[in-house]
């Protein structure tokens, strides 16, 4: 049973669930691009496993979003028939893989964010979100162990691996400010105790990242003024290509099922 909410809040809850779902789905798709191409078999398996967990989490969230929406669309319809402007993932998740260091930096930034997010979301007033968060948190701990372990080895590794991870950090850090930029969806859902307040997550994420990056001998670049707004449906140019790839089959054969 889904508890009914006042209309404004109901719409905010749906948007909030889609933000979480789309972030996991888009990142899962990106990591899936590594399959068969990773530097070693163990990393191929590692990235594919993280992708699979994220895809599973996205399915739980999209299934819930489909129920909340109540228009008879399924999780597959939401994943494969929405256009770029309807995707509400954070912009960081859709950034291309680049080299292995680039993928690891993107991963560690998002893993650390999901760790704090799911840890607090376990106590959501929304029972379904609380259950999904508790389950996802356990998986995210392994993701973070993997990505932070690699960040340390790369950052505090050879001259080459250090240079590559520092340049990845410089390319990707600018997207992190979006994780903690509030809008009315965040405010409404936090007020109703559906979502944790972003102001509570930000210092925990920053402290964790600062400590880790220091250990990895990497330097945090300054923040830029431009604010990305993927979670409001305004994306970088990369998402469209990702969706074209991910959605091709379903759009060519509408309603296709495994």
């Amino acid at each position, binding site marked *: 049973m889904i508890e009914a909410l006042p209309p404004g809040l109901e719409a905010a809850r749906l948007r909030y669930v889609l933000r979480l779902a789309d972030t996991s789905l888009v990142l899962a798709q990106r990591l899936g691009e590594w399959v068969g191409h990773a530097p070693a078999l*163990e990393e191929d*398996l*590692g990235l594919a496993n*993280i992708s*699979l*967990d994220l895809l599973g*989490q996205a399915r739980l969230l999209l299934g819930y979003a489909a129920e909340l929406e109540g228009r008879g669309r399924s999780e597959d319809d939401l994943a494969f028939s929405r256009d770029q402007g309807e995707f509400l993932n954070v912009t960081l998740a859709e950034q291309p893989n680049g080299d292995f260091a680039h993928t690891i930096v993107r991963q560690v930034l998002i893993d650390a964010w999901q760790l704090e997010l799911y840890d607090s979301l376990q106590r959501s007033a929304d029972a379904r979100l609380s259950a999904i968060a508790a*389950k996802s948190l356990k*998986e995210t701990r*392994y993701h973070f162990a993997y990505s932070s372990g690699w960040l340390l080895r790369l950052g505090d590794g050879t001259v080459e691996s250090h240079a590559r991870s520092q340049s990845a950090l410089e390319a990707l850090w600018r997207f992190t400010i979006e994780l903690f930029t509030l809008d009315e969806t965040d405010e409404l859902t936090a007020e109703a105790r559906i979502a944790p307040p972003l102001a509570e997550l930000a210092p925990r994420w920053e402290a964790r990242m600062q400590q880790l990056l220091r250990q990895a001998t990497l330097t945090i670049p300054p923040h830029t003024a431009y604010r990305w707004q993927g979670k409001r449906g305004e994306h970088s140019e990369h998402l469209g290509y990702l969706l074209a790839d991910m959605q091709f089959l379903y759009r060519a054969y509408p309603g296709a099922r495994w």
Partner: protein
Amino acid sequence: MTPRESAIWRVLASVPDPEIPVLNIVELGIVRYVRWGDTPGPHVGITPTYSGCPATELIRAAVQHRLAAAGYAHASIEQVLAPAWTTDWLTSAARAKLAAFGIAPPATQAERARGTVPVVCPRCGSDSTRLVSEFGSTPCKAHYSCRDCLEPFDHFKCL
């Protein structure tokens, strides 16, 4: 437990895990309840191990099939999300079977609370082992290697 519930549990205990066939789904701890409601068949609650585990749907289909073959054509298989699955629900018989199958079993939360528990090599019994990767051949396993016998092996992750 009523006799008609025990009968269902016995059927469920005949469904193997598709990836680790030495374990059945009851030993794996993923069957959360068996009960009757307003519908003619039993309701069986199953929780996924990992959210993306591809075995989840295979298990669901196998349960439906096995119950139908045992005469329960109207069974409803329901997904349970909370509380989230934990390896603490693996029975002690299951842990022993895993080790015999060559997979180092997970430590329980209580064991881990008392300190770091070494991952013991299932082939030679040495506790001098090292983590190769947090991820292995299935979502539930990590990849280890033994410093003594030098063999690689799987460790069922603690979740």
